[in-house]
């Protein structure tokens, strides 16, 4: 077997040799491998470790930090150990049902080849949910783009290509896109963020684990899906390095090629396999192929069960002949899954994939095929031709490795001055409010999400864009609802990476609450710069502390997550700290979903929460060129009380409509609620003067457009609504609804349709 020389080389020689072979492994890591094996590693082995020990697979600089996140609680059916986590939805007809959730990034590939990068992001996250044994029921896509105004810019190419890729893939496989967000910021010019979230539905007793089951020595390892090709070679390592423009061609080769058509059929065939196995009470192992390809997947499956494996690379269905063994072993060709099956059912499972669902006719050389078997000893062995090309202790390959990197103490973190107040300069509300509505972070996302199928499966209750969260009724015949929302504000990260992470959690929980759902749990995707840079790494450390703090205080555990580092270009431009959080909520009865459209004239409008003189990260401050204000600290006792109050008011039938307050503040939330009423009978808004809301303790601009408080609510029964607010909950009567299409604010009477035009048009140029 071809070996990669380590022994006898100087550090410099080794570094050069590694670079020439396209390896991201460091010199100390290469030496560690040679030392443990007692010989130079083979070419296949060195590529296997390159993938397996990349940040992408090993979380070597983040795993120990992630232990700080709360992962337990009564809502957790399965915590973050496998490809996806599971939350308790409820009991229905004697069965316990769970919502599966997975969250991932596909940032690097999307920056290089946006359409394919984003599409394969959706493809990968769907497989993570599928391989738990679940039916895939929804997806969401938090996106961060650079400045896309210039028609000839790469940023515009990325912003369009990503949306087209998500649309093409998600629509074809038939999974509704029910939530997501998008921010535009120059700090994403060189590194876009494409996060994807997928949800699944499963009965507790039907969960399939990503591990070779007990007693499975000698069982078959069955590879399912697309023929392995040369695409995606070095993908995991590619995700764990800084993007270099000169290497564009190599980078492109590392991007996988999506095939949603094949995936559509594989999903349906796999659902059929699930029922076959359930009818016979067979426990199998199942995992999707992602980073590290066949090697990564089979090694992790078998190692998790306490086994070893032998895989014969000659038995892998490949798209072209004579592929090098390391490419077959580690390449990240899409649309592949791997089963661990007892030998006596293998033939039936192959029949389902290959004959009943005719995979070989759907895509060239696609099929299900046996490629190896589970071994009782803990060695991981790959055969190719007549040779053993890899033979390593499996736990050395998949075991945890850790990089201890320097961090600045929390006290040294850069934060904006908490005492700094917004200084009210001159402004004209008649001009400012439409500008806020048209701001790139506020304006309507419809031109983007109209391209996504948000209603396939016929389960959609609140479609994308209508409310702060999407809602579906995924379990046929039951009244259960599942809500999904995402959050993570890059403007806040500028002010304070710790508080920004806390706000990401709080905002996602509030969004789910605003549609009437109980928050069940969270996922987090940590998108950061280069961990070798102490400032960027420190931001990651602070953000995880913030995520942990907020989730513990709000009682929402994390069941799954992902880390994406090295979001930095060679020029040193790093993205802002971007912890992105997704929250899953449950409704016992979708009849009690709160919808955001204002319902009728004459209702009272309330803001629930604590308005503060904190302009940090606020859109209005950016537009008035007075940035640098602080973020308001979060009072969790109040935040919890407000959430409980919303539920109580909903249960008492006192909420006609509601929205959580986000970008653009109270005024924008209300405007969007009023826009939602325009297609039927228009309901307008009359806001009273802010002095009357807060006794003048909070400035006018912060009152109208401040972003840190909780919810706006329309209620038909003022007295009852105020009566059930506990002492900890602050409710402010801020105005009333009126019977015409106007919006009165600060003495200015706006025409609602003109406001809507300002809000709905900006992205139409980018997404015509």
């Amino acid at each position, binding site marked *: 077997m071809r070996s990669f020389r380590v022994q006898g080389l100087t550090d410099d020689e080794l570094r050069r040799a590694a670079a020439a072979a396209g390896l991201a492994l460091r010199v100390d890591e290469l030496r560690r491998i040679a030392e443990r094996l007692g010989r130079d590693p083979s070419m296949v082995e060195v590529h296997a470790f390159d993938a397996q020990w990349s940040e992408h697979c090993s979380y070597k600089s983040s795993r120990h930090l992630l232990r700080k996140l709360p992962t337990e609680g009564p809502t957790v059916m399965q915590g973050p150990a496998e490809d996806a986590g599971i939350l308790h939805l409820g009991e229905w007809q004697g069965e316990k049902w769970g919502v599966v959730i997975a969250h991932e990034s596909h940032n690097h590939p999307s920056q290089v080849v946006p359409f394919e990068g984003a599409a394969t992001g959706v493809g990968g996250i769907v497989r993570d949910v599928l391989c738990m044994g679940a039916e895939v029921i929804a997806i969401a896509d938090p996106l961060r783009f650079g400045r896309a105004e210039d028609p000839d810019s790469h940023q515009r190419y990325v912003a369009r290509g990503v949306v087209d890729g998500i649309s093409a893939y998600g629509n*074809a496989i038939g999974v509704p896109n029910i939530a997501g967000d998008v921010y535009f910021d120059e700090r994403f010019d060189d590194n876009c963020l494409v996060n994807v979230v997928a949800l699944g539905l499963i009965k507790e007793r039907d969960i399939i684990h990503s591990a070779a089951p007990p007693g499975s020595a000698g069982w078959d390892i069955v590879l399912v899906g697309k023929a392995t090709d040369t695409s995606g070679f070095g993908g995991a390592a590619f995700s764990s390095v800084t993007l270099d423009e000169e290497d564009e061609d190599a980078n492109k080769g590392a991007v996988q090629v999506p095939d949603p*058509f094949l995936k559509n059929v594989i999903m349906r065939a796999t659902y059929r396999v699930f029922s076959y196995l359930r009818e016979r009470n067979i426990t199998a192992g199942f995992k999707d192929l992602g980073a590290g390809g066949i090697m990564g997947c089979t090694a992790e499956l078998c190692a998790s069960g306490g086994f070893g494996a032998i895989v014969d690379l000659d038995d892998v269905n490949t798209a072209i002949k004579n592929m090098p063994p390391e490419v077959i072993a580690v390449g990240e060709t899409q649309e592949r899954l791997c089963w661990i099956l007892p030998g006596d059912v293998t033939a039936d499972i192959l029949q389902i994939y290959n004959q009943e669902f005719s995979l070989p006719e759907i895509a060239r050389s696609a099929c299900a095929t046996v490629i190896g078997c589970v071994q009782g000893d803990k060695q991981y062995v790959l055969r190719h031709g007549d040779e053993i090309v890899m033979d390593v202790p499996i736990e050395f390959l998949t075991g945890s490795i850790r990089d201890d990197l320097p961090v600045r103490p929390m006290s040294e973190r850069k934060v904006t001055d908490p005492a700094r107040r917004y200084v009210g300069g001159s402004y004209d509300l008649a001009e400012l409010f439409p500008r806020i509505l048209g701001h790139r972070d506020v304006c309507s996302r419809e031109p983007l999400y109209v391209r996504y199928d948000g209603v*396939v499966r016929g389960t959609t209750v609140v479609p994308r864009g209508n409310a702060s969260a999407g809602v579906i009724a995924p379990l046929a015949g039951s009244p259960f609802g599942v809500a999904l929302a995402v959050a993570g504000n890059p403007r806040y990260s500028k002010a304070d990476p710790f508080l920004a992470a806390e706000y990401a959690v709080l905002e996602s929980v509030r969004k789910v609450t605003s549609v009437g759902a109980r928050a069940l749990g969270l996922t987090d995707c940590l998108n950061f710069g280069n961990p070798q840079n102490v400032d960027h790494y420190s931001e990651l450390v602070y953000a995880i502390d913030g995520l942990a703090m907020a989730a513990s205080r709000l009682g929402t555990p994390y069941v799954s997550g992902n880390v994406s580092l090295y979001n930095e270009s060679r020029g040193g431009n790093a993205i802002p700290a971007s912890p992105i959080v997704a929250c899953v909520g449950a409704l016992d009865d*979708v009849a009690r979903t709160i919808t955001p459209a204002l319902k009728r004239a004459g209702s009272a409008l309330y803001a629930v929460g604590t308005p503060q003189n904190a302009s940090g990260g606020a859109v209005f401050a950016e537009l008035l060129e007075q940035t640098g204000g602080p973020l308001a600290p979060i009072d969790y006792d109040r935040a919890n009380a407000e959430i409980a109050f919303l539920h109580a008011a909903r249960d008492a039938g006192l909420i006609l409509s509601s929205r959580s307050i986000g970008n653009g503040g109270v005024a924008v939330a209300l405007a969007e609620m009023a826009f939602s009423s325009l297609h039927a009978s228009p309901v307008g808004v009359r806001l009273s003067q802010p002095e009357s809301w807060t006794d003048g303790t909070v400035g006018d601009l912060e009152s109208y457009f401040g972003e840190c408080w909780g919810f706006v609510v329309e209620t038909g029964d003022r007295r009852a609504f105020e009566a059930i607010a506990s002492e900890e909950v602050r409710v402010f009567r801020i105005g009333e609804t009126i019977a015409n299409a106007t919006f009165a604010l600060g003495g200015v009477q706006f025409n609602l349709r003109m406001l809507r035009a300002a809000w709905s048009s900006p992205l139409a140029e980018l997404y015509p």
Partner: protein
Amino acid sequence: MSTAKVAILVFPGTNSEVETWRLCCDVGLDAHVVHWSHAATLPRYDAYVLPGGFAYEDRIRAGAVPAHDPMMDYVIEGAQRGKLVFGICNGAQILLEAGLVPGTGPLRRPTAAFTRNGPVPHFVCRHVYMKFASDPARCAITAALERDALIPAWAAHGEGRLAATAEHLREIVDGGHLTFVYARADGSIDDGATPNASALGCAGLTNREGNVLAIMPHPERDGWNYNHPDRKTGDNMLAPSGGALLFQSFAKALA
């Protein structure tokens, strides 16, 4: 419950079979999902529903390749013998490509197609209303609908614009093939109500004999009250909504 057996056809790439099957069952039909590898069982069924999706990944033009799938041999034969055939979205595209609808030309030589949306050629997901534009008796599947009925539905397609030569469009109008047009919630009709620049504002067509119906929007995605954007508090959320009216009419035709 009707004794008629209904097959919901799944081609490679179909993606809406489950909700279509659920709504068929909820209106009392004996419906079964039939995959392509079981095509030979199709003659046993009394009616066929072709659901939405991207059969054969919309190669060439949506519906063009599946129109030549062996499953369509059975559907064409059934249609010619008077069986009811109901195509939704991708199913409708397949029926046009197969020449079953409007059925004014030879088989598999379409005289009209649902093709790339206008004015901008991208996928559109939008809530719409389909206004019943023909005489109820004209098509068996719509026979139980009231005149001018409004069916709520979701348009969710990239290729839903009816396109044909002026001569063939005239044939469609004169022959009474135009079954549904896009409308607003109040029943009014204007260009803005049509999500895809479809000729004649067409949302659905039938064949000469009235036993085959092809509609682009998905009424089964506004099939239960919880789906409906303007549902009222107090409605039974799990009960069929306006989109089910058309399925109920289909079930009556099979009773």
